[in-house]
């Protein structure tokens, strides 16, 4: 399994073979506040790198969720739709959003590693 990578839109992505698991970062959940609604892409649909692939809403506002790479949606996490508060509790593990069969592994190279992301998150929220 490869290292976890991060996008500027505050998604994390973990690649296992040609299947990527994607969710939103802890930093993102802290900025959003209490998440009370989640909408995921449809299984079987295709999503394009940097395109919208879901929505999360806090009590205050709605935010799009983007996909950091292109691919076909092979699985979605119904548990976070049924209980969106799980996203605040465990954003970078059990509260993943969707899994993609990826098209182009080189898209992973455009993303940040953990150190770079932490720096980016700190700078952009300051």
């Amino acid at each position, binding site marked *: 399994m490869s290292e976890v990578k991060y996008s500027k839109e505050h998604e994390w992505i973990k690649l296992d073979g040609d299947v990527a698991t994607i969710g939103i970062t802890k930093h993102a959940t802290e900025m959003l506040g*209490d998440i009370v*609604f989640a909408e995921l892409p449809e299984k079987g649909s295709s999503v394009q790198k940097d395109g919208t692939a879901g*929505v999360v809403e806090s*009590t*205050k506002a*709605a935010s799009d969720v983007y996909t950091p790479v292109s691919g076909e949606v092979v699985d979605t996490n119904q548990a976070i739709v049924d209980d*969106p*508060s799980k996203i605040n509790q465990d954003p970078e593990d059990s509260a993943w959003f969707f899994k993609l069969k990826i098209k182009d592994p080189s898209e992973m190279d455009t993303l940040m590693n953990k150190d770079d992301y932490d720096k980016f998150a700190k700078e952009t929220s300051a």
Partner: protein
Amino acid sequence: METKKTSLYQLHQDCNAKFVEFAGYQMPIQYSEGIVEEHKFTRNHSGIFDVSHMGQLFIYGGEDLIKDLEKIFPLDLKNLKLNHSKYSFLMDKDAGIQDDLIITKTNEGFLIILNAACKDNDFKILKELLKEKYKMVLDENRSLIAIQGPKSSEILNDVINGVKDLNFMSGNWFKFENQKVYITRSGYTGEDGFEISIANDFVDQLTRELINKGSKLIGLGARDTLRLEAGLCLYGHDLDKDKTPVEANLKWAISKERISKGDFIGSDIIIKQLNDGVSKIRVGIKPEGRIIAREKTKIFNQSDVHIGEITSGTFGPSVNGPVAMGYVENEFSKKNTKVFLEVRGKKHPASICSLPFYKKSYVKGVN
């Protein structure tokens, strides 16, 4: 214009508030525990809200003032008892709502609590309407806090003895550290509670004492979810100059006595609308499932015709689901009418429902 800070700014910072600019003030939107926890804590225990950005307008006068104010507000102020409060609105000649407010009869005249974003304009309008006959003070030297929730009476009474005997929608002068404070049993959360008008220099001390007794500071975020669950309007969203009190479904707040006379600003339109009905009206809207329909969401009927718009919508933590209100064409305003809400290009089913979404009985003196 520089953003203003309330006298509780330091305390908000000490409690790790996240700030937003609201009506020209730096106000706490939430503290570290977050909106959902703050909301629930208010419903189950006691929450303190800094509402010092709201206007506290004192108007001094006697019988003449009552007569002049009755030309402005659709209230029976003559028969309003001393220290009793009423919800009302400042209307223009077309009965459009310029602000909604709480007016209380005091021993020296009236105290009117105004929305922060409207207070300066309200002051100008009222000064003109009253032709500068009375002393009017939009008091910047006083802060206003609300303490709301089932434990609030006990907590506040521990600090200021006697408040627990106040009836709902009435008030009186009390003492804190030898300072005169005006306290009313009222609020905007659907819970039992109080609003306290106190000198700026003493509000920090009072608030810290209330926190020590078990209450907690609550931000504007939870104030919004609490008031929406309680079916209460937010000016600038659910109410504005293009809406009348009859359209806003607030005719309960208009005195029948005064309608029969019809001599207040906007009364022609109000009487006409009460007799002939209105074309649009404010209703509660309950989305099916978990979809949240926010302000400006379009409402459609079952034949896909656009019939109205959401004016407030969020997730209600106590209801544990989405809640909304908005305006629909009158013929679709009946309870349980099926409607559709357009969110992100898709139409989602919802139904018209009665307000409030969340109801708790007030302790006593309900009127």
